[in-house]
């Protein structure tokens, strides 16, 4: 079976070692972006942005439990925004916890885990690896 593709460009799957999330950090002001870019949109510096490996540990900033989505998308699920330790904020599904607003605590520690992208495949039938958050 061929290697899965990353669900997003900032998910890196090295030939050796574990997958990770990659940010792009401004050397002038420290802002972190999820895409490669020339110019920092916070401070305007050019050419000072370099790739950096983001932490797999973070804290849940906010969430919503989504009960209605587009056709074919399983609900309910937890849409979560997570601040990673050392910088960078990412959005994804929070799993490994009941999708019940009363049970999910904003600020709770979570970790980034890497799993198959819910069985979703592209037109060519390729599998994808995605990232999720789990309570830690």
């Amino acid at each position, binding site marked *: 079976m061929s290697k899965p593709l990353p669900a997003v460009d900032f998910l890196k799957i090295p030939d050796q070692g574990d997958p990770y999330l990659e940010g792009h950090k401004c050397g002038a002001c420290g802002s972190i972006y999820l895409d490669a870019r020339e110019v920092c949109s916070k401070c305007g510096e050019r050419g000072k942005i370099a790739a950096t490996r983001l932490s797999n540990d973070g804290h849940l900033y906010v*969430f*919503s*439990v*989504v009960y209605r*989505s587009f056709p074919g998308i399983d609900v309910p699920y937890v849409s979560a925004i997570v601040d990673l330790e050392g910088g960078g*904020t990412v959005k994804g599904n929070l799993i490994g916890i009941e999708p019940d607003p009363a049970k999910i605590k904003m600020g709770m520690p979570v970790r980034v885990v890497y799993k198959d992208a819910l069985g*979703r495949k592209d037109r060519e039938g390729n599998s*994808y690896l995605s990232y999720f958050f789990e309570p830690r």
Partner: protein
Amino acid sequence: MSDVYVVGIDMIKFMKAGTGPAVEQLGAQAALMALDDCGLKIQDMQALYCGNLGQADAMVGQRVLQQIGQTGIPVVNCANACATGATAFREAWMSIKAGVNDVVLAVGVEKMGAGLLGGGGGRKGIPREGLLGSMTMPAVFAEAGQEHARKYGTTFEQFAKVSVKNHHHSTLNPKAMYQIETPLETVMGAEMIAYPNTKLMCSVNVDGSAAAVLCSEAKAKQLGLMKRAVRVKASVMTSDPWQERDLVMPDVNTCTRIAAKKAYEMAGVGPGDIDLVELHDCFATAELLHYENLSLCKDGEAGQLIDSGATSIGGKIPVNLSGGLLSKGHPLGATGIANIYEISTHLRGEAGKRQVPNARLGLTHVIGLGSACAIHVLEKVA
């Protein structure tokens, strides 16, 4: 620079998404109503500023003129997400401020589809919705509300009260899409879309249009239109400045705060001077955020403000007397001008059962996600 006045303004009754006529006919209806409101003709207009989102690349303004009079005037088509109508209005205002024109028409119009907005996807690879969280609008604004809940303990019930209030207001507005009371238990018990937003806490997709005739002071006096004129005391737009969580969490707060501060300065008034507000309640969660963003209360006190009834009809600072986007409806490109219609109607003393007694100053606010914020402060003249 001349002060700018709204001399004619109107909106059609908003209708179920997809049931209206073609977009140019929809826009033409409001345009003619606004012209009739001030007794002017399309031949009197020196320019048309047209806001529409769904057909932003399809010359909607010119097509409106093809319905009501092809006089050869310049037409500017504007698209700016949910701030589209307000952007068209502001461009019209600016052309008079600049002394280029002295009487112009602004039209906002939208034909909407049904169902969820946002989500996106469709790029290469696989769909991301429900895999990397949700980018549907109800979820995005749920998360924005949750940020407030996280900081201040705002409750589901407090968010839901916004919807109870706005639906109540709309029972007094014959131009609203709905005129239905929705008690708290109905709002909270409605289908949960994205916690804490239930179906009744999401704005209604509708077809709609609104239009305004704007005039310089000299022209308004010459035409004898000052009696029902409404002075534009402030017109401000902002985009969203850089924020730490920008990439995954649109920030509707900062651009509103900056715009509000500038608008109060430009108008030379404070939030305490404002008699009524139409703000961008695209979701019930959003309204509470904007109470604080517009300085209607202190930070952290939005929950108490809705609990106190101050923003309901008869309260200290009524908000969204039209029924808001939650019940009047939200035709994206028309919303910014429809809000100005609501405020103008109160300032003219013509708002019927929902009239704010002796209203002198009103404020309108819209947010287009992405983001564009527009605020107008309007003042009674006569």
